[in-house]
């Protein structure tokens, strides 16, 4: 037993270098000014109109993206649950196939598709339907987010769904439950762990993204991720960047805490 512990050493080293040390650095910079003395200014800077708006928009778009992903993924899970086991794997493979392509490539592809004279609009124009001007709007960002993060919703939901014993569904029908009641009283509660992890795995990257908003927002729509990125790169103000990062982290933790309240068993939480 004792010797086995050493097997975790590479992982621990990785966590230390990749997570703990950067986190300490961010904590340090977040609470210091340019001269290195303690300050809360980097934290309170979130109240600046520009920053608050960016955080609000990020939370809103991430929320919309999560809800859309859930609405798209849950029925898929329900359908896959019923399918013969042989075909299931293949369908899941198809659904998560986009994950195998580079994330940046996928997002640039959407930019090309949605552009004013891009593939989509040329086709629509050709059909005489008119143009769809959503590039460089929040709608385009949500679309990109949904496309990029949907597999992260499908997989955990699929995983819990296929494990739900069919006898339970039949027992519910047997006891008089309609299809709707079977969904609300049996399937939903039993798949809650998957829903919770799905929401977590979509919401967190969505609220922190800056790449999708940059590419599909045309550099004019700022989410909190974009602000932070700019502070670190363009403005070279790593203190402000760290402070805002900390605020964002707190918001994420609060969201997750709220979410976990729904998950009585705590099986699905990844925090």
């Amino acid at each position, binding site marked *: 037993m004792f010797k086995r512990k050493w097997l975790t050493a590479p992982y621990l080293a990785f966590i230390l270098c990749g997570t703990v040390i950067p986190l300490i650095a961010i904590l340090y910079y977040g609470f210091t000014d340019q001269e290195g003395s303690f300050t809360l200014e980097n934290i309170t800077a979130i109240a600046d109109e520009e920053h608050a708006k960016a955080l609000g928009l990020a939370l809103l778009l991430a929320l919309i993206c999560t809800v859309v992903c859930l609405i798209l993924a849950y029925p898929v899970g329900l359908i896959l649950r019923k399918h013969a086991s042989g075909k299931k794997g293949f369908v899941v493979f198809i659904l998560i196939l986009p994950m195998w392509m580079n994330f940046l490539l996928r997002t640039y592809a959407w930019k090309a598709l949605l552009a004013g004279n891009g593939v989509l609009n040329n086709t629509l124009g050709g059909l005489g339907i008119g143009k769809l001007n959503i590039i460089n709007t929040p709608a385009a960002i949500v679309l990109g987010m949904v496309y990029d993060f949907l597999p992260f919703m499908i997989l955990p939901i699929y995983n819990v769904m296929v494990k739900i*014993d069919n*006898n*339970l569904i*039949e*027992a*519910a*029908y*047997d*006891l*008089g*439950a*309609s299809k709707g*009641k079977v969904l609300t*009283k*049996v399937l939903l*509660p*039993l798949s809650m762990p998957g829903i919770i992890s799905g929401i977590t795995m979509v919401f967190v990257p969505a609220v922190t993204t800056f790449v999708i908003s940059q590419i599909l927002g045309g550099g004019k729509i700022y989410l909190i991720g974009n602000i932070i990125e700019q502070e670190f790169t363009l403005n070279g103000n790593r203190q402000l960047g760290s402070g805002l990062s900390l605020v964002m982290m707190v918001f994420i933790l609060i969201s997750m805490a709220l979410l976990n309240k729904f998950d009585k*068993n705590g099986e699905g939480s990844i925090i």
Partner: protein
Amino acid sequence: MSNILELEHISKKFDDDLVLDDLCLEVKENTFMTLLGPSGCGKTTTLRIIGGFTTPDEGRVLFEGRDITNLPPNKRHLNTVFQKYALFPHMSVGENIAFGLKISGKSDQYIRDKIRYALKLVNMDGYENRDVNMLSGGQQQRIAIARAIVNEPKVLLLDEPIGALDLKLRQDMQYELIRLKNELGITFIYVTHDQEEALTMSDTVVVMNQGYIQQMGSPESIYNEPENAFVATFIGDSNIMGGVMLRDKLVRILGVDFPCVDTGFGTNKPVDVVIRPEDVVLAEPGKGRMDGVVSHLIFKGVHYEMEVQAGGFEWLVQSTSMFPVGQEVSLNVDPFNIQIMNKPESEDEEAVVIDV
């Protein structure tokens, strides 16, 4: 008594595999009926067709004379106790039992009383708030039964409900199920592959094999008057041999004439003969109808079990008196205890016998 349930000419195929073939069954009100047969003979499929979980390819299901063939399970006035209990893991014992009652919109007071009543009935008072995942197999089974009966179904379907329990618990549960059935006064349709269980509990036993009903009747008639070799071998131990019905009430077995009570087979008709091991009477050599030698002896507690070589056949004999190996004995059988059966007509049926 009228029929509460009727299956009319039910056939069911699973990918070209004919699982039930033109099955007809009538279930009388307030009976304990058991579907008995080897694994894979179509018992569960029959039960699922009654419950509404499987649709038959052909035939009709009638409930109190009404055609319910296409009615979904949630609209049928019967409940099922599933083989693997199928309790809802996200609900307490009480919530599980209340599931059906809440759906049918019963009042809280009614539900509370019913839960208490049902728990008492299955000997689990005070378990309302327990976590179902923490219960033993036997307890889970009781809760599954309680969850079904609170809905006051007219028919309760049970698919090998105690098959997974250990022997002692299984025997206790057999008596409890009989008691439950009598207290509730409803019809039980019970599936098992255990012949002892079927004989102990049932009013009516339906012996099935390969999608056909082989015989249906009281446990006594199934045991004492098996209609074919399959039933005879499947239910209890038996000596089955070919014979010739010389005329009414006289059969020739292994070259020796035995008086019997069966009539109507014609003259010189080849038949199958079943003699239960406890019905073979051993006597001193020369005093019975056929002489032989004891070749095997086992003590079984209540009785001795012996094998006797006689007439070129190995007879299985159960007796409370012991005859040592090598002892010369003579066999006799009371005419009432010789069961004559028609030989199977098709080779198919013959194959069934050899399988067992």
